[in-house]
């Protein structure tokens, strides 16, 4: 009985530690993402993409697909 309880205790302890590690890691990556986002915000969309003909004229054949993808992602 005592042995079983010991096993359960060890398992619970290990799971809690792993969960804590994962949460810390996720929080870290979220903070990094927020920092990157904050740095990027002042830039224009054109700066992020490099030269993109669709930013000058959306009537090109390839830009019709881009517009569809932008609409879908905003939904």
């Amino acid at each position, binding site marked *: 009985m005592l042995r079983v309880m010991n096993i359960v205790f060890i398992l619970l302890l290990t799971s809690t530690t792993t969960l804590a590690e994962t949460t810390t890691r996720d929080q870290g990556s979220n903070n990094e993402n927020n920092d990157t986002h904050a740095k990027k915000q002042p830039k224009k969309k054109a700066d992020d993409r490099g030269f993109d*003909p669709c930013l000058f*004229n959306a009537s090109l054949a390839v830009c019709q697909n881009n517009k569809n993808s932008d609409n879908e992602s905003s939904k």
Partner: protein
Amino acid sequence: MNFLIANKNIADALKSWLGVLTVFLAGAYTLFEYIEHKQSVRVERSLGYVEHYRDSNTAEAKLSLNQLLADNQQTLISLLNSHYADETELNAAFNKLILSITRTPAVQRNLEITFTFFEEAAICVEHELCDKEVIQSFFLNDAKSLFNSFYPYVCQLRKQWKNNTVYLKLENFYVNPGKDICQ
């Protein structure tokens, strides 16, 4: 005496339930660890692509293509800002300009290196070997703008080789599956 027997019965029942709980927890923990491990392997593999993109000849090829666009920027912008009777005329003029600046073997080689790299990363995600979020955060902007700029060249290749699947995975992953861009 009855009290002791009852206690023993409770202890026995508790023992069985704890056994079941242990097995369940162990299974859940193993599954959790497996999923975590799989995810971290995917992320590591994706970051391998990022390193390769920055250090290898792919970086040089991409820089050359950006330089090519910068050299022709004024012509491209004035073409795109001009007024055309309809979209067909605009597309024809854009196709002609892009095909003229991509006619040299060096540019074609750089396009092949860059587009093949982007397509390989897309295939890696398709087979769930790489992490989609990581690949898209690092390559989406570059791949999309380069594909949008040089798509007439891709269309020319598809036409020449009679193969509509040339760089199709790249197009589907980074741009978006939609109508045929080479019509």
